[in-house]
């Protein structure tokens, strides 16, 4: 880590409310995270992996759950992202993880998403992805990006 004043023992936490307003606002939290990670001096590849995973998650919350909350915990060694929504939940998580499987609306597709790549992308860009969901209650997604992590990206 080369970030000024951001060394061992330091933790930065961020909280975002992802509301279900205008679709054009989806991605603002990810853009903010990207800016923060850059300012803290993380390597470009780490910034890229964390922000793409976050962006896909943010879009998913918007499309499927009408918004939610995102909490990010950043240390010099890793970035932990937790996304929680109160949406309809995922009945079959294994199926949802398959590339190309999608329940997104036509509107989501018109906006350039909803092709069943969200969760697979989140998995491929992170070192750890945990999806917990209850139908009718909501979904919680925890992602971990390690600095120097083993993700193929």
């Amino acid at each position, binding site marked *: 880590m080369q970030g000024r004043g951001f060394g061992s023992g330091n933790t930065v936490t961020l909280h975002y409310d992802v509301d279900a307003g205008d*679709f*054009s*606002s*989806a*991605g603002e939290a*990810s*853009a903010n995270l*990207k800016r923060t990670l850059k300012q803290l001096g993380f390597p*470009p590849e780490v910034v*890229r992996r964390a*922000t*793409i995973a976050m*962006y*896909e998650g943010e*879009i998913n919350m918007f499309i499927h759950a009408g918004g939610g909350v995102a909490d990010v915990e950043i240390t010099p060694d890793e970035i932990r992202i937790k996304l929680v929504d109160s949406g309809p939940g995922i009945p079959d998580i294994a199926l949802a993880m398959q590339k190309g499987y999608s329940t997104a609306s036509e509107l989501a597709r018109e*906006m*350039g*998403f909803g*092709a069943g*790549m*969200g969760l*697979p*992308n989140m998995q*491929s860009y992170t070192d750890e992805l945990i999806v917990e969901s209850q139908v009718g209650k909501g979904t919680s997604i925890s992602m971990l990006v390690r600095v120097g992590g083993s993700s*193929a*990206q």
Partner: protein
Amino acid sequence: MKLSRVQELLKATVLCNDRLLDELEVNAACGSDLMSDVLAFVKDQGMLLTGLVNAQAIRTAEMMDMRCVVFVRGKLPGPSVVDLAAEKDIVVMSTPYSMFTACGTLYAGGLVGGTIH
């Protein structure tokens, strides 16, 4: 390839950040209307060509460190999309060419597809 050359080849109208045309160079580009594909497969490409005229095209470019978005088939985004790109220092152009012709023109002009993963 300098963005000024991209503009010339595509007979494009620049919608914002024209001050960067001679400053920025791109070494590769990708064309897609599906943002998840761009997020999944594209790496180290400086420019996005798309028919998707909304803020998520700009957001996706931002996430991927792309410096230019070209809207094909003469499509024009709304002012809020242009404002977002202007704020992010992303050059936005609109070309009358179709996706196929725009990509082919740039490829023939020396711009390649770059790496995917």
